[in-house]
């Protein structure tokens, strides 16, 4: 998404190139922050901090890594470390990952989930699970790219993503039933 020439120019001290580069990536940086933090103001703050860090650290980027995973690593680290909130998240491990939930197929209402319900459900995930989901769906990253961004083993990424989706499915299903209960 960012031209290698632009990155090289920015690394060699071309300040205009660096600013152009930041403009190209700011939306991607913000989008990740927005869905991890589930709050516009926090996302704006975190994204700005990430852009400043990218500005100062551009010299340390090495081409053997993908640039997009390098910047996502920076923004997810900021979101997870600096904006870590002491709010309860569901513990994925405690949940029974057994597939059979013994629910009536007739109960299934296959209507679309509301966007705010999905965001609320994502917000309940543990932070790394949340980051994996955001990179998979908002940045369209592959397993490997997610692993590079979060510095996690590939199997862990898959495990987090699968568990997160299962969890989201359960949460959203509960929301729908909760809606019926009023």
């Amino acid at each position, binding site marked *: 998404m960012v031209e290698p020439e632009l990155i090289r120019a920015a690394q060699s001290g071309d*300040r205009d190139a660096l*600013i152009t580069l*930041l*403009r190209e990536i*700011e*939306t991607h*940086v*913000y*989008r990740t922050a*927005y*869905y991890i933090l589930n709050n*516009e103001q926090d*996302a*704006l703050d975190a*994204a*700005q901090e990430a*852009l*400043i860090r990218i*500005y*100062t650290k551009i010299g340390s980027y090495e081409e053997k890594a993908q640039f997009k995973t390098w910047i996502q690593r920076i923004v997810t680290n900021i979101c997870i470390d600096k904006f870590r909130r002491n709010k309860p998240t569901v513990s994925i491990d405690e949940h029974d990952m*057994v*597939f*059979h*939930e013994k629910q009536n*197929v007739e109960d*299934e209402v*296959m209507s*679309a*989930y509301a*966007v705010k319900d*999905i*965001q609320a459900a994502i917000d309940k995930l543990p932070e790394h699970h949340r980051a994996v*989901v955001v990179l*998979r*769906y*908002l940045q369209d990253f592959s*397993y490997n790219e997610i692993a590079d961004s979060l510095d996690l083993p590939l199997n862990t990424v*898959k495990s987090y*993503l*699968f568990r997160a*989706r*299962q969890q*989201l*499915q359960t949460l*959203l*299903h509960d929301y729908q039933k909760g809606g019926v209960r009023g």
Partner: protein
Amino acid sequence: MNCQEVMELMQRQLDDDLSDSELDVLMSHTRQCPDCAAMFERLQLLSAELTSLPKVIPSYSLVDAIMPQLEQMERFDQLEETVPVVSKVTELTPRRAKRIRKWPSIRVMSGVIAAGIVAGLFLVTYKTDMAPDLKAKMFTASSSDDSAANTAQEAPLRMALKSDQSAEEGAGEVSTETVDVQKNSDVMETDSLNNEETMKDDLPSSIDADSPSGEGTLGGTGSVEEGITAGGTSNSSDGSAGEKEQGDFENTAVPAIISPDGKYGVQAANFKIDVIAQADQSIVFTTPRKNGELLNLVWSADSALLAYEVHVENGAIEKYEIDIATLTEKKAAH
């Protein structure tokens, strides 16, 4: 294949990670297992929803918002690049020391004066019963090291030690003094403050970059600092010479060095020395321009002669004497 294993196939299918054969296994299972079929449907729905989450964009340009910070960091970087040059000055090579004297003039002086006033007021107002931590706070506010508070408390002592000072200090000392004055700029006591102030008001030319000849008088104040930090011991060998001029030096408002009989004063500026009649403040004699720093202006006891030294760039020292009776100048014997 049990349902648990199929679950992973479902998950991987959502990420397009299945081979054709794996996909066949998944499909044949869900055809027979309504629970798995329902779950797969829900997961596909979820995945579709996640894919279509709003592609939010920031409500304003983030890069524009951080631009002032980036520019500030840019300036800071440039500042950092110059810092090593300044700190090297403390290595006391005379040439470097001279360079630093070019810019301290007004800016540093005013800082010195302000800090001196603070230190002076503080000493007058609080004396020694103040809590030490508050003192430290006061002095760190004017950017100094820990020794600042201690040195400030010694300020009265420093005035006394002044009699130990000598005008005989060489160019090497001068560079130390310059650094010293800056480092301890916040602890300048009011006495030196007066001198600095009058230097600035009356003799702007003597602060001129390339004419450090103000040292003859400035050296007096500078060496006060030096004497204190060195414990007042370094200059004792030349004490007699310093004592001779000390009395007049301290009482005079202008930085001119007054002869023992009080008739004439001398001022070094712009590589020249002016002899000023104290009766009407007229300049009765000006030496020819010299090619080095004019230092160590010393009156003879009978006020007949003024001896001084020219410290040339290459380190050589030429000694001169001004005969006050004839208002002539000649090279003194070495």
